[in-house]
């Protein structure tokens, strides 16, 4: 997902009876479905875990501008260009909401950038794959935004107020993202033989990385159990992946495209699809920085930041000059 494998500092999820009164009251409020707000007491581990999760999510949104931004200047029609621009602009906006949500937990945006640029903070594995054809823009909207929606819809109910509210705004835009991607795929799949081949090739390359977005099975993970107890995670990775496959397979069929998984078949008994296992070695390699585009993506973000230092410094200096001038004219007036 946009936040994958978020670690807590937990060794074991404790029961209410094992908690100090303050923490117990906190957990009881969460259990009762109440929202936690920035100024309220919270366990240090809850705060730290949320910072990790929200900042990872924010970084994913802004790094995610790059693979799609790659095709704005080559979009095939004026309308597609406008739609893609609007979509990439939305993603930057999502980054902004999420950085603001994380800032309520006592970390600054500059600190989060620092963690991203140094490689300490992660972002979603999916954005380390290249966009090689126009069909990749369709596949990203359809599959990647589609997978993001699976995860983000339940996060609208998460226990931390600012994060939940950011998700409400973001989810409104994500369904447009998914639709525009599916629309690109529909036109290609019904187009010339070359366009259809382009669409199939994109599905072949994006299918498995999309399934990996949900992260490896976490049924045995103490971190996931703790995050679920805190209601900052609602479903297991496998649950969400299953839901995604069940939603997406009929869409691929409608498009006349083949999902590149020989193990894929409908299982009447469970009322869902059986499907193959993604290559988790590849996933861990991408997470560790060895994906096809990790270096380009990070390099691009670092360059944007470093090249822009004079711009940010200029604005700060001007604001200080203006404040000093106002101060001077106030003194002169007295």
């Amino acid at each position, binding site marked *: 997902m946009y936040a994958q494998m978020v670690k807590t500092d937990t060794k074991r999820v404790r029961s209410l009876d094992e908690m100090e009164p303050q923490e117990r009251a906190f957990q009881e409020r969460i259990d009762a479905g109440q929202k936690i707000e920035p100024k309220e007491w919270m366990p240090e581990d809850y705060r730290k875990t949320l910072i990790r999760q929200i900042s990872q999510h924010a970084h994913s949104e802004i790094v995610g*501008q790059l693979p799609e*931004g790659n095709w704005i200047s080559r979009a095939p029609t*004026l309308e597609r260009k406008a739609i893609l621009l609007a979509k990439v602009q939305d993603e*930057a906006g999502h*980054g902004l909401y999420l950085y603001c949500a994380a800032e309520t937990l006592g970390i600054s945006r500059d600190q989060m950038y620092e963690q991203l640029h140094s490689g300490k903070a992660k972002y979603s594995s999916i954005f380390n794959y290249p966009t090689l054809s126009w069909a990749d823009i369709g596949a990203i909207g359809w599959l990647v935004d589609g997978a993001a929606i699976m995860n983000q819809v339940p996060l609208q109910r998460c226990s931390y107020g600012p994060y939940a509210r950011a998700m409400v705004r973001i989810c409104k835009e994500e369904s447009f993202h998914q639709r525009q991607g599916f629309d690109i795929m529909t*036109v290609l799949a019904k187009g010339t033989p070359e366009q259809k081949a382009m669409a199939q090739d994109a599905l072949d390359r994006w299918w498995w990385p999309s399934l990996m977005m949900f992260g490896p099975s976490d049924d045995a993970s103490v971190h996931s159990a703790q995050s679920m107890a805190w209601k900052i995670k609602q479903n297991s990775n496998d649950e969400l992946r299953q839901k995604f496959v069940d939603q997406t397979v009929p869409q691929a069929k409608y498009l006349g495209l083949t999902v590149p998984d020989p193990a894929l078949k409908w299982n009447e008994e469970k009322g869902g699809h059986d499907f193959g296992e993604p290559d988790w070695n590849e996933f861990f390699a991408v997470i560790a920085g060895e994906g096809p585009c990790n270096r380009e993506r990070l390099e691009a973000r670092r360059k944007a930041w470093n090249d*822009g230092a004079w711009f940010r*410094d200029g604005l700060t200096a*001007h604001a200080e000059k203006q404040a000093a001038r106002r101060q001077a004219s106030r003194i002169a007036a007295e």
Partner: protein
Amino acid sequence: MGAPASSPAVSAAVAEFALRMGDNCLILGHRNSEWCGHSPALEEDIALANTALDLIGQTQLWLGLACEAEGKGRTPDNLAFLRDVSGYRNLLLVEQPNGDFGRTLMRQYLFDAWHLPLLKALMGSADRRIAEIAEKASKEVAYHLERSADLVVRLGDGTAESHARMQAALDFLWPYTGEMFLADALDEELAATGLAPEPASLKPAWQEHVGRTLADATLKVPEKSFAQKGGRRGVHSEHLGYILAEMQFLQRAYPGASW
């Protein structure tokens, strides 16, 4: 609709004028969109994408009018993606490479300060279609100008480095501003028939705005006044060919496909 449809000569003039307007928007929108994900701050990524989006929307309107007035059954996408360099009518200013973020902002400002008074004048065009597009676009462009002027002032009057970068951007771009006010036979015809203002008539408003903004920005107006020109005749700088090679790639590589 207004008179132009009944008079082919006026139609050809309107078509050519709409191309000039649309091409400026398209090429500047393209340049701005190159910053997506690479700008100095997240807020700038958003603002630049927003400006680019407005300009692409305006492109669709102007090129739509060009197709209608031309009457050859072409679409705005045909015009955008299937014309070569010599068919493009934009100012040389908008096709200049982005350079650093300061040059991008300065280019935007110099253009906005001309674009807005032009659109305001076009709101009184004898062709209702031109007037309507101008009215819609002027609301967006008023905001572009407010933003670009504000940033020019803040960066000009910022640090020594930001000042030096903005001055260098201004000096580099200045020779491309003269073209905005030059008139050719078509401009004279448009002015005579009340379709568009005389280009020179926009100069006082532009000079006034630019003079005031640069003074606030503590920047010096360049003394040299030679003008690089040719965009309206389809004689461009070397840069436009690369923009089109990139922009038109899919339409050229897969002729006749729908997207």
